[in-house]
């Protein structure tokens, strides 16, 4: 009765359940009330339309960064550089948003495309290095993260502004935010970007599963040598995969730049959007639908957690523990698989 597929779907669900359960046990051990704690978390994420809006706001970049990691993983590449690609995407979108004055039909798509292009470029560098010289993409992308972080800071400070800590607000014609949504959700920062995120999830599914190119990308991921033997260009596919992955990540940056904030401030550290993307992709089993669902879970946990100290006295760090536990259980899926198969045998 348990096919391999059902097990693959069951594992993330069981992991989430186990993560929350162990989280509850930890709360009890440290003298907090888990029912109150999770109640506060739920309230903080969906309590009313404001919190719901904020949760969606948080989910939006997570979907895109999750897609970026998932896309690369499906083609056998580990893109740790999503964080950096988010930065350059954010920078590019805000730059276009600040520098031009254009009608909205041109300005907004231009800003979004600029972000995707910047992210793709940031993904292209490790891609070409891997394809031509065989440099491992993990090393390059990690370094590219730091390059992105500090160059964006320098550009914000010295190129876009004159010694300021943040750029001006983008023109209204480049903004994804909408007054209509803001009013409906009591000024939450939810914006139209969520539609773009859904669209991208669809596009990723389409590229990978419905096109020849996608088939090639996946087959290079499964076995580069066999693909090469079958006449596919491994190098070309690696570069392409990194660029598409980077473009998704760049769009995640655009969500922050054009939607949530409307500006770019100098950062003292990473935003973690890219790094959370790795966890989202892992939990979502690298599928488009899985990533969307996992991003919703993570967004809910993150936003809901802010409510926990005030209402239930539970520190926000607990949610980080729960997230870590979920990832742990997904990563140790072998254990869960073994238990499920065990039950299956006994059932027979």
């Amino acid at each position, binding site marked *: 009765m348990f*096919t391999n*597929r*059902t097990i693959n*779907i069951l594992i993330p*669900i069981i992991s989430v359940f186990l993560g929350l359960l162990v989280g509850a046990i930890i709360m009890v051990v440290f003298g907090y009330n888990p029912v109150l704690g999770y109640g506060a978390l*739920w*309230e*903080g994420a*969906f*309590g*009313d339309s*404001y*919190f719901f809006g*904020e949760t969606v706001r*948080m989910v939006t970049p997570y979907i895109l960064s999750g897609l970026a990691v998932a896309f690369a993983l499906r083609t056998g590449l580990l893109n740790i550089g999503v964080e950096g690609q988010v930065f350059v995407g954010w920078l590019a979108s805000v730059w276009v948003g600040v520098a031009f004055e254009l009608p909205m039909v041109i300005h907004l798509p231009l800003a979004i495309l600029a972000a995707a292009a910047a992210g793709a470029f940031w993904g292209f560098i490790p891609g070409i290095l891997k394809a031509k010289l065989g440099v491992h993409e993990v090393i390059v992308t990690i370094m590219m993260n730091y390059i992105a972080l500090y160059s964006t*800071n320098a550009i914000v400070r010295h190129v876009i502004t004159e010694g300021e*800590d*943040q750029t001006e607000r983008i023109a209204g014609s480049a903004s994804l935010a909408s007054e209509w949504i803001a009013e409906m959700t*009591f*000024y*939450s*920062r939810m914006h139209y970007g969520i539609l773009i995120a859904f669209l991208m999830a669809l596009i990723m599914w389409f590229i990978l599963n419905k096109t020849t190119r996608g088939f090639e990308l996946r087959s290079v991921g499964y076995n580069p040598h066999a693909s090469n033997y079958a006449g596919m260009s491994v190098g070309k596919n690696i570069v392409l995969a990194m660029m598409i992955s980077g473009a998704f990540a760049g769009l995640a940056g655009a969500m922050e730049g054009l939607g*949530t904030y409307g*500006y770019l*401030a*100098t*950062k*003292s*550290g990473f*935003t*973690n959007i890219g790094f959370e993307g790795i966890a989202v992709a892992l939990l979502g089993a690298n599928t488009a*639908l899985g990533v969307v*669902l996992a991003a919703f879970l993570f967004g809910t946990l993150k*936003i809901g957690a*802010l*409510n926990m*100290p*005030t209402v239930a*006295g539970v520190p*926000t760090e607990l949610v980080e523990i729960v997230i870590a536990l979920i990832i742990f259980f997904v990563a140790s899926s072998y254990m869960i698989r073994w238990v499920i198969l065990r039950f299956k045998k006994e059932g027979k």
Partner: protein
Amino acid sequence: MKNRRFLLILALLLSIGFVLAACGSSDEGESSGDGGDSNESGGEAEASDDFSVAMVTDVGGVDDKSFNQSSWEGLQAFGDENGLEEGEGYDYAQSDSEGDYTTNLSRLVRQDFNLIYGIGYLLQPALEEVAEQNPDTNFGLVDSVAEGDNIVSITFKEHEGSFLAGVAAALKTETDKIGFVGGEDGDLIRKFESGYVAGAKSVNPDIEIDIQYAESFAAADKGKLIASNMYNNDIDVIYHASGATGNGVFAQAKDIKQNNPDEDVWVIGVDRDQHEEGKIDDQNVTLTSMVKRVDVAVNEVATLTMDGDFPGGEVMEYGLDDDAISIATTNEDAMTEEIVSEVEDWKEKIANGEVDVPSTDEELEEFESSL
């Protein structure tokens, strides 16, 4: 097979839908209850038990042993004085990242707090935005000037206190090399830096001052690394204006002291009297601290607001004359009478206008050329 998978996904989506729907209905009941409450208490804060105040920390967190902690102590003191309960009458919300500022501020507004503080200049854009959206709530911003009729800006003359810290450092150093560790580079920390440099050069024009920025208020590891480099380069006094990053500076100084109790290394603390942070065995590496009584200011503004005199739209500036800025003398072994009396002399000079302490890079250049 395909069918089954489809069914499973459908079931999953449906169950999520149900859960969401369930939450929606339960909320309506609760939020209407909340609304009732707010109508009662939101009318006017007449009695003190109706008044509530909250603060949003920056990324340093409420236990940063510095700026945020001092503010929280101010609120706690205010709560004690007025018999308020933590969580109901006064509370804080911790921000783990830049994205949390707006969410935290808005959440506190929705929980019907009467006065909400943003602690630190980093919160300025978020606070201005939220204040504009909620004209009926009062806001306070510490360390920066925000525009809005329902915002009071609380600033300090940190350059004056830092000047005195610079005087103390220049008198204490034996190598004539001192250091400065800043948090994030910006107008505010430049104010500390300018005052410190001016103070040190006033005592000894040839003193060498190494200035480094950690680019974060929450990176104790970077603070430790910078401090380690500085102490290795013969620098023996470091003034840090970097919030929780400074904990790394203290850690490094204490490590050195642990290895060699005879080596003289000093840290000048910031915001709170950081005497406790410098303790190692029976010695203490905290020379002094540039004490900035954020707690007093926060408490004072909360009291004003409770009494119905919210100073909306105003900029309140606290300085040496209100004792809101001072130099700690807790470490009596290190702060010898000689140093203390010299510091007092300079304080006098600042008070009667003889010395005009620079607060920006340009003013500092002018000041240095006038020496």
